[in-house]
């Protein structure tokens, strides 16, 4: 299946919801609107044979208009084709529909993305923090938060070059 045919089929079925197409990097990358993500992924799985969700992660570009992003990597194992989908959402209303009904492995991957970036996945069965402590009140992977624990007393920052 060539890249062009995939792009054309998706553009025909989801008019105006594909924002950009990038074939320059290692795999076909589509940037789509957040409302279309669930439908496009279901379409890719049922019609075009992308039966494996390799990865789901978040990203934060603080300078963009829609800073938070969710990135999906899909894999068609029969024809050996990989695909990357990107979608961006705003910080004030970081909601997107969950893909747990399509791929069960999205369950924990979405929890991890929520834990790190604060992106809320609607219809997720159990959206709680998974890796960090439950009483943590900020989303650590966002760019404005530091790596080190601000409350530690034994390490002086000047000796560590910070």
């Amino acid at each position, binding site marked *: 299946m060539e890249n062009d045919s995939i792009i054309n089929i998706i553009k025909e079925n989801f008019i105006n919801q594909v924002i950009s197409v990038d074939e320059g990097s290692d795999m076909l990358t589509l940037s789509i609107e957040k409302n279309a993500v669930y439908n496009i992924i279901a379409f890719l799985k049922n019609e075009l044979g992308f039966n494996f969700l390799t990865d789901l992660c978040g990203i934060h570009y603080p300078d963009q208009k829609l800073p938070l992003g969710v990135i999906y990597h899909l894999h068609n194992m029969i024809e050996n084709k990989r695909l990357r989908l990107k979608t961006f959402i705003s910080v004030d209303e970081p909601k997107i529909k969950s893909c747990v009904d399509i791929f069960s492995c999205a369950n924990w991957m979405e929890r991890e993305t929520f834990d790190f970036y604060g992106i809320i996945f609607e219809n997720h069965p159990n959206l709680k923090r998974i890796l*960090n*402590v439950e009483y943590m009140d900020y989303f*650590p992977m966002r760019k404005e938060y530091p790596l*080190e*624990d601000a409350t530690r007393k034994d390490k002086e920052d000047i000796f560590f070059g910070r």
Partner: protein
Amino acid sequence: MENLKIALKTVNPPEGYSAPGFFATSLDKVVGLARKNSIWPLPFATSCCGIEFMATMSANYDLGRFGAERLSFSPRQADLLMVMGTISKKMGLILHQVYEQMAEPRWVIAVGACASSGGIFDTYSVLQGIDLVIPVDVFVPGCPPRPEQILDGFMKIQDLVANEPLRRRYSPEYKALLESYGIK
């Protein structure tokens, strides 16, 4: 026969007075000798140092020849808490609970850089050293420490066990130490 006597290396008995039929020494030396050669460790293995501990327990570097053949996974029956690996803040509470359940006399060895001081992970989620939550006796540095280093740390614990005064656990300094960690 003389060659055999020179070739054999035996362990020295503790200082005392001996004559045919008896050996007299002080009680704490005997108790120390018995305790140090029969420590029951609790392997609290969390990450990579745990695999080096598994290598220490197996046939090549055998921890069993120091008397620690029987690992106890229940804190109530263990003497030595060996913390091997990174302890995160989520795990720190559990470590504190496990330490509280151990009966006196108890010792703690922190194996690895992560348990001693947080190691290479100076992050928001890692406890920078387990001595923030429990009192530690011996720190073994390394990432991960070689089995020989772990055995060296274990031998230092054996020295501590052998030379400990019998009333140390009832002394006010020890009680103050436990108070400072919030352990009753």
